[in-house]
């Protein structure tokens, strides 16, 4: 057996230079996904006519097809149909694919979160003169967010790792750099181990942060 752990440590700084790209793609995608997800979930909860069916088809498509297929379709496929998409860079295509895909999952998570808050509280808010928006903001959403947070966090962790798929369309992020180093030095195991370790540490740190936050916002619900 011939593992060069020194090499693993040696290339980590080299890899970390590309961590910002990974984080950038992940965080921007997540933010866009949350916005689309919130809109979709409100459509689902309120059963807005016509749009409801479109939303359901959207969700079904993006949950029902592989994310890699979606990524390739957007980057290589769309420009053939609509030439304007030739302008779309690889990074932007990756962000588009990840946010559309993640939003479909988030829509269902947020819907469940909203529906987990009993109707009675909304009625009570209405009965003391609060508007729908006021009830949403002050009463329903804070509780829905709390209920949806664990599942949303899982989606985020999934997204951090899925962002590595961006290398397939030529975005140089963490994995792409690792692949480069691996083939340059022919130390595949060490290079990919180093890449894996970085993902692991990032997701671990994120889990800690989320755990702390969940604890914090759960206070009202503990006896």
């Amino acid at each position, binding site marked *: 057996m011939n593992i060069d752990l020194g090499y693993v440590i040696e290339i980590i700084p080299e890899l970390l230079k590309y961590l910002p790209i990974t984080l950038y793609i992940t965080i921007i995608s997540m933010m866009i996904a949350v916005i689309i997800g919130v809109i979709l979930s409100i459509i689902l909860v309120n059963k807005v006519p016509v749009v409801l069916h479109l939303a359901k088809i959207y969700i079904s498509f993006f949950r029902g097809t592989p994310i890699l297929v979606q990524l390739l379709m957007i980057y290589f496929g769309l420009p053939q149909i609509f030439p304007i998409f030739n302008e779309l860079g690889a990074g932007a295509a990756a962000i588009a694919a990840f946010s559309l895909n993640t939003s479909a999952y988030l829509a269902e998570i947020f819907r469940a979160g909203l529906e987990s808050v009993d109707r009675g509280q909304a009625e*009570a808010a209405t009965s003391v003169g609060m508007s729908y928006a006021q009830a949403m903001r002050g009463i329903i959403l804070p509780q829905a967010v709390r209920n949806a947070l664990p599942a949303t966090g899982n989606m985020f962790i999934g997204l951090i790792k899925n962002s590595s798929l961006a290398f397939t369309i030529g975005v140089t992020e963490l994995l792409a750099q690792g692949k480069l180093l691996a083939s340059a030095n022919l130390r595949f195991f060490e290079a990919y181990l180093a890449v894996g370790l970085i993902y692991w540490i990032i997701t671990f740190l994120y889990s800690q942060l989320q755990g702390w936050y969940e604890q914090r916002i759960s206070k009202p619900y503990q*006896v």
Partner: protein
Amino acid sequence: MIKVSNIRKSFKDNVVLKDISFNVNKGEVVVIIGPSGSGKSTLLRCLNFLEKADGGKIEIGDVAVDVKQANRAAVSKLRMQTSMVFQHYNLFKNKTALENVTHPLVVAKKMKKDDAKQMGRDLLKQVGILEKENQYPISLSGGQQQRVGIARALAVNPYAILFDEPTSSLDPEWVGEVLRVISGIANKQKTMIIVTHEMNFAREIADKVIFMADGVIVEQGTPKEIFDHPTMERTKQFLKDFHRQTEVHHEFYGENTKAMLM
């Protein structure tokens, strides 16, 4: 005064309210009794548009609304005229006892935070639960939650307060304290409409009793008229059934439970 005229309401094919009309004078306490499924709660919920009636007119204080033509602004204006105490309390679970009272004041009534706090504390004191002001609903008993619910309903200072079976989901041991709080408010000349199954309480507190069955008002009058000299057969039957139940209850649990129900 409150003037309810010709309210009708169906859920799909199920007719729940058939042409309901009644009046409540300012400062009057009206208790609505009747068998389960008679439409009492639905009627109450139509008054603040938690359910939209199919037709009729609702006038509360100086706001009059024709149900069919009601737009959003009219509905919200009418809602401001009442507040409601719910069977399941429906406290805001992410707010403390005090915040449950103050939050609507701050966001809906645009009251200053400090003023709202002051008022909230006064009301919590009035319902006897000030020492729990910083506790969240989950750590309060049913009776305590309902008293917070009553304080919240009082805070917005509406023309009338609607009570939708306020003690029906309480453990028997808490019923008395909640009823006492409600009696306390009634003594302050607050206009109230109360749906309840507590007959002794109804007799004590009501200026007027309305007996409903199968979606219509069968009979209305003073507590004495309704409880002691009912004229309609349906009312007599209901009261007879009720008395039989309580007698069984007393035989089973002993006489002292009667005092408790008071």
